[in-house]
């Protein structure tokens, strides 16, 4: 099996890992797996297509607008999800709230981009050769972004006041509130940060993979699967889970054929859920 297959798997795995990380960022203070998270990926792809592809804006200007738009989307998403959750009091309200948010964003993208598949130029149209296999700079940027998001998130949680607040809320939200930790702003920050992260990977990955306006739920499912395999709420688990399904899919497709890729991913997921119900790095969490 050629090295190219492993490199392709590493790239796809990095995309899924970043999606899982962004879901973890939201999950930590809220205990909510946000099924609308993949729509942030589509926002990145759509704005990349619009600004870089159609309007030919400079990269820095496009990135600045993207970050602002993604932050706004994260803020709106937080209201769309947390408001029904807080008002209903049901411990299952988040499921329908996040799915509804996903459908609303997906419909909006479909209305705006009825006849478009997002695709635009690589930021740097260059390949590097690794023992005969090719790795484009664009793919390398996504892999580096995955490593950077993991490290920055880890340091943020450990070394900053806001990060420690997130960990405290994740541990016990009620006690955190009593101790004066601003739960609601922290949750807002988590939604905004998570959406900016996933929008950035959407922006970077779209020139490599082909993204349709309605593909948000697909990316959510991949990120969700990665998070479950690695352990829900664990950044380390998100990275391991993402890389695992990306590489597994690429290798199995090359080995057994295309239709086996998805099967193998969910087969491994089933095995892991039996052997390690909380994933590789997850902790047992009581439902709320």
């Amino acid at each position, binding site marked *: 099996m050629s090295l190219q297959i492993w490199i392709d798997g590493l790239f796809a795995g990095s*995309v899924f890992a970043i999606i899982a990380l962004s879901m973890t960022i939201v999950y930590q203070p809220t205990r909510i797996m946000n099924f609308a998270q993949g729509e942030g990926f589509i926002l990145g792809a759509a704005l990349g297509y619009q600004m870089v592809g159609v309007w030919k804006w400079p990269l820095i200007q496009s990135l600045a607008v993207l970050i602002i738009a993604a932050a706004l989307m994260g803020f709106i998403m937080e209201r769309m999800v947390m408001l029904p959750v807080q008002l209903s009091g049901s411990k299952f309200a988040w499921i329908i709230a996040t799915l509804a948010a996903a459908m609303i964003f997906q419909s909006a993208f479909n209305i705006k981009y009825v006849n478009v598949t997002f*695709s635009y130029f690589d930021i740097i149209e260059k390949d590097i050769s690794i023992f005969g296999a090719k790795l484009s700079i664009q793919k390398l940027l996504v892999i580096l972004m995955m490593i950077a998001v993991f490290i920055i998130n880890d340091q943020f949680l450990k070394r900053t006041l806001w990060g420690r607040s997130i960990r405290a809320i994740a541990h016990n939200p009620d006690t955190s509130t009593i101790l004066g930790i601003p739960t609601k702003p922290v949750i807002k920050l988590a939604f905004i940060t998570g959406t900016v992260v996933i929008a950035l990977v959407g922006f970077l990955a779209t020139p490599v*993979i*082909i993204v349709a306006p309605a593909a948000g739920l697909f990316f959510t499912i991949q990120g969700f699967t990665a998070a479950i395999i690695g352990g829900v709420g664990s950044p380390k688990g998100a990275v391991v889970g993402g890389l695992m399904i990306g590489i597994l899919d690429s290798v199995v*497709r090359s080995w057994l054929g*295309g239709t086996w890729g*998805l099967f193998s991913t969910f087969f491994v997921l089933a095995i892991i859920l039996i052997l390690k119900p909380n994933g590789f790095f997850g902790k047992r969490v009581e439902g709320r």
Partner: protein
Amino acid sequence: MFKKKVIIAAVAATALFGTAVTATAADNPGLVPKKVWDSKADKIKVGLVAPMTGVFAVLGISQRNSLQVVADQINAAGGVGGAKIELVVRDGGLDPVASANHAKELAGDSSINLVVGPSISAYYQGAATYYEAAKKLNCQPAVAALDFTDYKYGFRSQDYYKDTLTALMSVAQKKSIKKVGMIYESGPTGTDFDAYITAQASKYGITYLGWEKITSTATSHNAELQKLIDKGADAVIISNNAYGAYTAKAAKELKFKGTLMGGSGAQNIAFHETGGDDFAGTLMAAPNYQWPLRTAWQPGYKAHTDAIVKAYGSATGVKSGATSPNGTAIAADCLYSYAVAANKVRSLDTTKVRDAMEKLDIPAKMTPSGVRIHPGPEHNLYQSDGINVYEWRKDAKGWYTIEVNAISRQAAACPEAGWIAKTATGSPLVCTKISGKLVYKAGK
């Protein structure tokens, strides 16, 4: 000057297609069928089930635009027997269940006269059951697989996959392509393609390397293409659907030196966007697609395409600069054929119109697609003589095609009894079994 050019083009087109046309009692409905009788009906409802949103929305929107243009033209000319055509559109997405449900709804609606779609062979396979049960006349502009002799009420306005593959393999043989693999999604089209290439490849001196199946969830086709490269593939047949663009992308990434070969789906500019300049050289088998051809267009095709561009514009790839009209003339042919057939029998009765459609023979110069329509009992609006193979090329002026199958349509291997081809001068040939051997004989 322009008028002179149009006349020359029309004369040239007539000369090209004239042989076959004059040999039969050709219909002469004009570019727009006019009111020639009174149906006493107010309206004719035409259903469309197609992906109007999502990754393959380009197909549904193009189909709707083309149907609307023809409907508007016919309505302006008095309608079909005075009845005005009205479109009823349903979004099936890339969802076989939703598509089948919409088909079921329209099949059960007695006010619907004709249904177009659901496109994609696998989806139609499910929907056809409802159409046949309800005796609903239907026409399919993007169904390449399946044998339409199985359907009493279904017509295909798409190149039949056997014609497509025969044309492609003939050109491949001419280009000394020896090893061919296929990357296609699982489903009836892939299955039919695989079986046909397996059976026919050796007749063209081709070794078939097999079918690499793909799914809609794959974000790359590198693994599948790499397997075929490792087997020494000179050419790869790619999906007609949006997923073919992933293979074009993989070919670019893996610097595939061979040839990509596709059906009419390869006119989708998403393929140029993802494949980049490496998409040049790709072979595309399709009914007439003259948009990127730098020669004169068929009058009917020109009239339809000009109307599409005027009403809906054209799409341009932000990356490749490739363009395509926001319509698909093969969908227009469905409604055009229906109107001509209804006018011919002066009836909107389903069975009468169906029988009339079977017997149509409309010359290429008149139809919106620029392809001769003569469905016959096979219910294929286009026969093998209507299939072209184009090669995508790019120069300083942008993307364009050249037609490369003049040879293939004349001297293709004789694949099975009943196969129709034509000589260099356009005379029809019929593949016939004589003393156990398949040979061409002159005939209709």
